[in-house]
């Protein structure tokens, strides 16, 4: 990777805000999302789901369903691969239950019929006999000695002896002298914090159109963040050869991590194989809420010591996360991010991954980070109040910077936390006056970002325009960013580049659009592909001029002779070289494959002002400012959009959103009316400040920006509520009833 060839200023296209290439299709209704495809002879699928939180499946009788006119196939677990191990076994168990239903909404069987209505009717006619079993949905309850055992053999060797079998993984790390650190402190806070599970809440439910023949060859159209992941998972679950399934990603209506795995795709393929017809499967919203996503819920014990001047002396944390009925709660990520913002001489962290009778958690924007940030940043705020310290000054005093040994081990390269804190301090928001019942909250957050397997091709067309082919689905404008980077590298106008998202048959493996990696990794590969193409363009010019290729440079979309012996030739434009390429050596393209690992982490600082109504407990956000390090903002409008969207999802998590389970273990709020995501009238404008501390690991300095923004809002809002209402809430979400209860307790107490 020619990263010595870095460029961090003097850009022509990078940093501008052109219209996105898919904008027209998306404002006219032409863009084709997951549910918008159809095929001739297509059937519609519907899924039979468990009404029990935990139950043995005694019998599945599809006789009556199959007798209904129009019903063509019913599949159960028996129609999938056997003998899977590890993550594939868990994935299959989640996609369709085996011996037990493990949560309310767990898929048991599926039907394909000639219409969606018939399929839904038929699903109701599939008779399932259950033996209900005791269940547990709360993380702390699931660890108690008397908790029901959900899966006896789910734990790995990391779990210390004597723990409940629902504890499936154990992690621990730390360094420094904790005892001495706490002894040095002038104040210590030690508290327990809890967050509830939330859903990614993408507005587009999962949808797919599958066709699988008896010969094991298949086509799948689906809304996904990563179609190579989908291909691998589906072929494993169906016992197919990987390359025989071609997966084409639709336009995707939001994902936030929740569309990096599969739920319905393998079922649609199995139905198609059985019925010998294409099958379309689309989830309802309540299926989405009951059986996909959500994130983990968490219970955390935090202890932090601080000197009077604000220096953090020691910190410890115990993190218990419940990730549904399968291993995989993002406990490690919670631990990695919790104290990452600060230089702490002594730190110790313990983590538990716990299973419970809930859907298998899926990644949600900076998976794990918001919970830990809520606990740690709340605890720091409690210390600032006790020691009468300014929350930004305290954070500046301890902030991680280049060379800081992180809480999780490695030293940080060049990072931008200090710059975000300085920008927040200087922002007019921080000095704005507050009225009665109003409060201001500050918090920081971190996400490490990701590189991942990446394969990109770039081809020059006969007229000198360029096509870029990437494998990372575009969820928020990334095609515009790729086109900008290609335009910058090639020196041609943005409009002359078209970026396409390829299917799995057209490129090497690409990891999903996750981990804030698309602009970083596909962007890096786009730039390197362009540079490779430029090398070839220069060679063609050199041949034409009869000089060495080394004596040709590329500038403003033209080959130019350069150096003392190059000779005098008029520049050759990309269009001139491209027009002749057929006769000068054939097509000109560039290709780059890598698993880049120079993704720099991104830090952010958020400010929020809000008002709490003491009569109703309702919180109103008055002012919100996001400051985050983008490394280099390729298309600033979409960077701002990521900041704003992340902040609002975090606000929802802090104030309203939660999975509510009844005593019966069933999800009580599986529709948007009751699972309340923020709406336009809940919010003010979300101000943004883009800090640019170039990432040394990207040719133009890019850092992923998608995820960090959801992390600080949880504690920032909690810290502001503590001021506005005079009560500290250590359990999210801070719904009006919870705030009222806290106010009443304070008044009574």
């Amino acid at each position, binding site marked *: 990777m020619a990263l010595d060839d870095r460029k961090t200023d003097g850009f022509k296209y990078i940093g501008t*805000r052109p*219209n*996105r290439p*898919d*904008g*027209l299709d*998306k*404002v*006219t*209704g*032409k*863009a*084709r*999302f997951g*549910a*918008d495809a159809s095929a001739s002879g297509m059937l519609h699928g519907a899924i039979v789901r468990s009404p029990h939180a935990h139950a043995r499946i005694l019998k599945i009788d599809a006789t009556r369903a199959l007798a209904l006119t129009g019903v063509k196939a019913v599949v159960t677990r028996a129609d999938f691969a056997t003998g899977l191990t590890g993550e594939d076994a868990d994935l299959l168990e989640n996609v369709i239950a085996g011996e037990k239903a493990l949560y309310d909404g767990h898929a048991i069987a599926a039907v394909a019929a000639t219409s*969606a*209505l018939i399929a839904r009717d038929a699903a109701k006619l599939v008779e399932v006999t259950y033996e209900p079993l005791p269940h547990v949905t709360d993380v702390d309850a699931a660890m108690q000695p008397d908790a029901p055992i959900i899966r006896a053999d789910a734990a790995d060797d990391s779990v210390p002896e004597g723990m409940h079998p629902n504890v499936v993984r154990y992690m621990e790390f730390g360094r420094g002298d904790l005892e001495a650190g706490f002894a040095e402190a002038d104040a210590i806070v030690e508290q327990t914090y809890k967050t509830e599970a939330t859903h*990614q*809440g*993408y*507005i*587009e*439910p999962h949808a797919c159109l599958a066709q699988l023949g008896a010969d094991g060859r298949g086509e799948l159209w689906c809304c996904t963040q990563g179609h190579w992941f989908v291909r691998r998972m589906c072929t494993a679950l169906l016992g197919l050869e990987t390359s025989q399934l071609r997966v084409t990603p639709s*336009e*995707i*209506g*939001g*994902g*936030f991590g929740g569309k990096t795995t599969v739920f319905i795709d393998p079922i649609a393929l199995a139905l198609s194989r059985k019925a010998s017809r294409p099958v379309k499967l*689309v989830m*309802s*919203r309540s299926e989405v809420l009951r059986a996909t996503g959500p994130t983990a819920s968490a219970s955390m014990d935090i202890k932090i010591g601080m000197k009077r001047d604000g220096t953090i002396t020691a910190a410890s944390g115990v993190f218990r996360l419940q990730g549904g009925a399968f291993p995989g709660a993002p406990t490690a990520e919670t631990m990695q991010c919790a104290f990452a913002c600060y230089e702490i001489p002594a730190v110790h962290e313990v983590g538990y991954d716990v299973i419970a009778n809930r859907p298998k958690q899926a990644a949600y924007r900076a998976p794990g980070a918001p919970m830990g940030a809520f606990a740690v940043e709340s605890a720091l705020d409690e210390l600032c109040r006790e020691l009468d310290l300014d929350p930004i000054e305290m954070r500046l005093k301890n902030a991680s910077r280049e060379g800081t040994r992180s809480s999780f081990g490695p030293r940080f390269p060049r990072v931008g936390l200090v710059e975000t804190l300085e920008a927040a301090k200087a922002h007019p928001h921080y000095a704005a006056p507050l009225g009665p019942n109003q409060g201001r909250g500050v918090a920081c957050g971190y996400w490490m970002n990701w590189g991942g397997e990446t394969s990109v091709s770039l081809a020059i067309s006969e007229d000198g325009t360029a096509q870029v082919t990437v494998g990372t689905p575009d*969820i*928020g*404008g990334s095609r515009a960013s790729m086109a900008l980077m290609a335009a910058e590298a090639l020196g041609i106008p943005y409009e002359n580049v078209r970026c396409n998202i390829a299917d799995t048959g057209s490129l090497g493996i690409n990891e999903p659009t996750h981990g804030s990696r698309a602009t970083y990794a596909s962007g890096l590969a786009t730039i390197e592909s362009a540079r490779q193409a430029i090398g070839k363009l220069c060679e063609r010019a050199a041949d034409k001029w009869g000089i060495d290729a080394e004596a040709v440079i590329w500038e403003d979309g033209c080959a130019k002779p350069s150096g003392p012996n190059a000779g005098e030739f008029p520049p050759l434009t990309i269009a001139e070289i491209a027009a002749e390429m057929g006769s000068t050596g054939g097509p000109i393209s560039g290709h780059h494959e890598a698993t880049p690992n120079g993704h720099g982490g991104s830090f952010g600082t958020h400010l929020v002002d809000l008002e709490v109504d003491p009569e109703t407990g309702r919180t109103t956000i008055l002012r919100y400012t996001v400051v985050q390090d983008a490394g280099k903002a390729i*298309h600033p*409008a*979409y960077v*701002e*959009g*990521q900041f*704003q*969207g*992340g*902040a*609002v*999802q975090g606000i929802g998590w802090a104030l309203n959103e939660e999975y509510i389970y009844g005593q019966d273990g069933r999800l009580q709020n599986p*529709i*948007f*009316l009751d699972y309340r*995501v*923020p*709406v*336009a*009238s*809940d*919010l003010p*404008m*979300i101000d943004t400040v883009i800090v640019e501390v170039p990432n040394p690991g990207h040719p133009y300095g890019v850092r992923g920006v998608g995820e960090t923004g959801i992390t600080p809002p949880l504690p920032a809002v909690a810290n502001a509520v503590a001021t506005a209402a005079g009560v500290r809430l250590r359990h999210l979400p801070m719904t009006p009833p919870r705030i009222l209860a806290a106010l009443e307790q304070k008044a009574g107490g």
Partner: protein
Amino acid sequence: MSRIHVTTTVNGDEVEYLCEPRETLLDCLRDHVGLTGAKEGCGTGDCGACSVTLDGRLVCSCLVLGAEAEGKKVETIEGLADGDTLHPLQRKFIEHAALQCGICTPGILIAAKALLEKTPDPTETEVRYWLAGNLCRCTGYDKIIRAVMDAAAEMREAS
């Protein structure tokens, strides 16, 4: 079950379809008329992704039966632009980057158009409350509100 024959007007074109009595207008538009611009985000009237107008009134097409469109005029996202000329709202949404994934966009554009027809000079608060039934999970609404306000200003100048 016998199907119902429906004759209606969609974006100015006369359209006929046969539907089940319990089929929604949203499903009829998407499956029988072939217009997939209106989206189903919830099916319960809570997200607004399926917004269309029925005789000029803004409705969630997931809460209207297909049979109810008989003799009425339906306007969907596919009819918002005038040929190649985008409606100012469409143009402003692109210019302001008011969409990320774009799944909410058709519903929000239809809802915003209905607002500006009634209230050409809305305050920010009015826009926020009018669009409170249209969920967007990606943008945090900031750029959407700006795009609607800007389109309203441009349309007032033009009229």
